[in-house]
């Protein structure tokens, strides 16, 4: 079931012109919609991107909620793009920001960190740390000029198969027009 209380997870973040007002940030989830996109956006113009280009997105999924939600999407045969690779962690709180940066350095075009809804953490408090860490992290990305639309934190429970489908589909749709992420590439990290 899609949780209507999570507006940022349900709607495709609208790219905003600098200076437009940021919508009310929900304290629960972080997405690009909360942030103004930096002016030097790394979005490639449409003609630069090969027509069959697909982004590669790394998903850090906590094994108690989001990983189970992704499994449920499978059980329910909910279709979504082949862009995601799920990396299982015991708790979203295990996801070191270092892992996210490394993913961008290596060449992933987008990263999703997903865990249990606040208050539902299997480990009581883990996702609160995730929330705090990644609020900061999103700002940092903006600061270093990495398009924050490429990074998302989301709460997906074990019963939210459709939400998993929706989030990864939207993230793919958001990143596709941005083209390959080049900002943090390691030298020689990718064979282009």
């Amino acid at each position, binding site marked *: 079931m899609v949780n209507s209380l999570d507006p940022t997870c349900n709607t495709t973040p609208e790219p905003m012109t600098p200076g437009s007002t940021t919508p009310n940030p929900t304290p629960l989830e972080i997405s690009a919609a909360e942030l103004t996109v930096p002016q030097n956006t790394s979005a490639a113009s449409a003609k630069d991107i090969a027509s069959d280009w697909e982004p*590669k997105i790394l998903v850090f999924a906590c094994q108690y909620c989001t990983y189970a939600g992704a499994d449920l999407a499978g059980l329910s045969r909910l279709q979504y793009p*082949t862009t995601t*690779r799920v990396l*299982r962690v015991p708790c979203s709180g295990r996801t*070191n*920001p270092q892992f996210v940066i*490394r993913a961008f350095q*290596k060449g992933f075009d987008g990263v999703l960190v997903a865990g249990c809804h606040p208050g539902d953490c299997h480990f009581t408090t883990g996702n609160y740390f995730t929330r705090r*860490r990644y609020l900061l992290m999103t700002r940092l990305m903006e600061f270093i000029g990495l398009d924050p639309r490429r990074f998302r934190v989301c709460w997906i429970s074990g019963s939210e198969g459709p939400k998993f489908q929706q989030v990864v589909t939207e993230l793919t749709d958001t990143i596709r027009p941005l083209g390959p992420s080049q900002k943090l590439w390691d030298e020689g990290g990718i064979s282009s």
Partner: protein
Amino acid sequence: MKKVGVFVCHCGTNISQTVHCEKLAEAAKTLPGVAFSTEYKYMCSDPGQTMIKEAIAEHGLDRVVVAACSPRMHETTFRKCIDSGGLNPYMLEIANIREQCSWVHSDKDKATAKAGDLVNMAVAKVLKNEQLPSSFIPVHKRALVIGGGIAGIQAALDIADTGYHVDLVEREPSIGGKMAQIDKTFPTMDCSACILTPKMVDASQHPNITIIPYSEVEKVDGYVGNFDVTIRRKASYVDSVKCTGCGLCSEKCPSKKIPSEFECNLGTRPAIYSPFPQAIPNKPVIDRENCRYFKTGKCKICARVCTADAVNFEDQDEMVQIRYGAIVVATGYTLYDHSQYGEYGYGHYKDVISGLEFERLVNASGPTMGKIKRPSDNTEPKNVVFIKCVGSRDKARGHDYCSRACCMYTAKHATMVRDKIKDSQAIIFYMDIRTPGKNYEEFYLRGVEEYGVTYVRGRVSRIYEEGEGENRKLIVQGEDTLLGKQVFVDADMVVLATAMEPQPDAAGFARKIGISYDQNNFFSEAHPKLRPVETLSAGIYLAGACQGPKDIPDTVAQAGAAAAKVVALLSKDEMETEPIVAKVDTDRCSGCGFCIPICPYKAISFTDLTERVHGSVAWGPTGKEVKRQVANVNNGLCQGCGACTVNCRAGALDLLGFTNEQILAEVDSLW
């Protein structure tokens, strides 16, 4: 050299219809570290598992990747499989190519490419896997039950009957809880004391139960199988061993006019008292605040009349430490303080009372000897109005939740009014009538049909008084939402069905013993459907209304379930623990202590490390011993969430099974 075996499963056609399994297995052969790769129709089947075991032996594999369904499905299966094939069970990784690949994609080439990536990641990770030892911790075969209401009594009896010793800690002078205060119980109307007191006696006489009354849990250390619990025995000023329970002291005590908690302040008790006649243990305690001797330094009448010489004014609180294997929390509930509904005039109008006060008024051993009399003038009320959902289902002033027992006990109370008072009227204001229980709907209907109880749908907006002396009466003003108009009902007495709430100290108590609680401060179960009596702290279980409002049948059922869990735990001599725990690299640890508060299980503490300093160092003589503090993880407490690893500034903490190296290897593997 590391040798990985990759085993690709078709899962019938579940995987193979969207993923080229042969190609996948073929491609896996080229990955670094892979010594063997194959595919099979059903990897989890007997022949599939045999295939894995044989390949381990034949190719000298030291680690295994299975590309199949979700690890949540068969990780344990394959761990056992490689274990019996001679490998450490943690030398396994699963690539989830069914739930997260073949079932969610339809383009076979793209799905195969993705499956290839997933296998890549799993291989990269498994190459960094290390053998993890299963460790065993001894289980101390003694259980602690906290709270001596019906939940705690039942849990204690069920555990004790299987042969394990139980300590039942109760903070009041007697066990019994709220059920001891209730007169009759719905839906059968059998008398509460008649079914409760025999159980209380059973508990007190059971060879395997020790009741520790007038005591509270101060501290819980340790972990499942080995909880070290500190219990404070409050000073009762009466030596329970010497005391015979004759009651002479209470009889002779000069301070008799103290409001009795047990009687909801409708009756009185002396300063040296036992809360009710059937109390267990039936040994009095001295209420220090109200005792004449403690207030004035003179009196000691109780000590003088006591033939057993049991009164001891020098008594002090005493701390005892006992080790337990398992804990049942059964601390029950309290009732909502309805003085917050100022317009209902509680505390202001004596004849507006709570449901529990009503129970005492109809109870044969209560302050009125079972005659329903209104508190203001001791006359028999004719018109009794009941208001439900006071503090329940009221976001603004109370709680969102439904208290579950009130619809039924209000139906019970109204029936009793009609039964006991001639020419009486019983009118119930309600929002909804909820009767979800066996014979509950029938019970409510009987009230309406046979006893003529009147139900009015709507909320009461105000209660006010009219008239003087004899003619004084309460007016209940509310809306009848079915008629759509305001109604004014004359009442001689009003009974409020107040919400069941967590104990006022619930949150602090939960933190003290290390369990979690919900937004209302009720203790949280591990899973709302599938693990309703466990907490997320291994070895601690829940029973009764401390977990959420419930009636007696549900409480007893839950207590039995908690007891079964305790017995299952205590029946083992030792317990296997998950090796997925945090580990400290003491060389790197700077002793900053940032990991200590982040751990939700209090599993990290400081330990002293003594090191010998070799060579010449700028800051001290050589060969000197230095002592420093480093973090230490208690494996019994650590649940393996990994929150500490991210917080560690020195990079000294890592999570076994999900190490930084393993995760980074997965990230790197695709490029």
